[in-house]
């Protein structure tokens, strides 16, 4: 009854034989070793376990590992390129978007989903995009500031790339 699956995680294929009831979050943490994805509530409510499945934010505690077979998953570990943090990570660092950091990977993956869809979101859009993610520490304002900072950085980089391409 076990299934052979292959999931592309952060660009690298991971193969394993798993029970169908294994949740994606447990596969990521316990089989593939990506412990950056956190487990908060385990009941689909807190968003700490959010990862990208084929580019879209999902709660990995509410997806079966077998459902990610043949698909690509991005976790918080997959955002930085070498030593260079992703713009959203830089935003959280510079704007103090975290205190204990428990919610942060989920917040960042959700912010990623948002900024892929909308490059210049309003504060309201940012709050709506993150409303499935709970933070016990920050009061959210610094998280919103962090995403705004990230949007500005990404916008600037895109403009620089466009100039360079001309």
């Amino acid at each position, binding site marked *: 009854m076990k299934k052979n699956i292959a999931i592309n995680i952060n660009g690298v294929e991971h193969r394993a034989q798993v029970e169908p*009831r294994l949740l994606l979050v447990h596969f990521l943490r316990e089989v593939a070793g990506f412990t950056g994805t956190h487990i908060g509530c385990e*009941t*689909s409510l807190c*968003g700490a376990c959010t990862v990208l499945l084929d580019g879209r934010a999902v709660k990995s505690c*509410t*997806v*079966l590992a077998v*459902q990610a077979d043949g698909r690509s998953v991005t976790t918080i570990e997959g955002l930085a390129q070498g030593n260079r943090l992703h713009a959203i990570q830089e935003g959280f660092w510079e704007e103090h978007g975290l205190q204990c950091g428990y919610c942060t990977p989920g917040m960042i993956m959700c912010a990623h989903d948002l900024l892929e*869809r909308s490059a210049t979101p309003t504060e309201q859009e940012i709050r709506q995009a993150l409303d*499935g993610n709970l933070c016990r520490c920050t009061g959210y304002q610094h998280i919103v500031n962090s995403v705004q900072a990230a949007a500005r950085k990404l916008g600037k980089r895109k403009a620089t790339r466009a100039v360079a391409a001309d």
Partner: protein
Amino acid sequence: MYPRPFHYHRASSLKEAATLLAELGEEARPLAGGQSLIPLMKLRFANPSHLVDLNFIPGLSYVKQDAGTFRFGPLTRHAEVEHSEIAARIPIIHDCAAGIADVQVRNRGTMAGSLAEADPSGDWAPVLLTLETQVCCLGPKGERPVPLAQFIEDAYTTVLDPDELISEIAVKAPPTNSGGAYLGFKRCAPVYPSAAVAVQLTMEDGLCREARIYLAAVGLTPIRASEAEAALAGRPIDPQTTRAAAEAARATADPQPDMRGSADFKRQLIFTLTQRAVDVAARRACGEHVEVSHIYA
């Protein structure tokens, strides 16, 4: 948190999924977005011994308009409806899609899964009931269209046989002089509304020609507020008629007290939400662009 062990199957077409369900018997369930089924399985409230995953079947996720009918696929996710320009032509559908839970749940959960689940607090059923909606049910013996009003029999109970699948949801385009709104009161995003109201009004010469009002999360199934509809039909939409409709809706609601609030509190929510939804629906019916979202505590 683990579900009980189960066998996992993948179908390559909807027809094959129905055949598999027939072979595997009543302990088998289809798996769509999993945003109701997986939480219930983790809590061991649902313990199917077989899951037939629909997610690997190509072509099931779409929003289309052909002539006077909008068509939603059996795997069309809430987020796809939320971002669809086609679906936005029926504002009440956009209100609903954008207000369900949070981004992550909307990225996975499906309209068909929501109708099949028939959760008393589910958003799609009350909204689609205000429109002319047919649910296409596909089984090993063939396909049958069922009007949505007959599709839901009770809380968590539909007319679907265990080997039947929703293969499409077809919604008749409302006339151009018709407008709707869906408004709920929610404690936070990733929860069902405490109460919600779906209103679709058709206006003619300044009068309401037809009103359809359904109340959500205040009964075992969506409740048609016929007396509230009667309070508007043939009349102008003004503060008096709107108030009369809201009072009638409050009397029709049949809420249970629970962690979302007392029965009286929910009835009062229905009163206020009906007033607001009627106002927005009437303005939209007259061509005004009005953006609304649920009210959060």
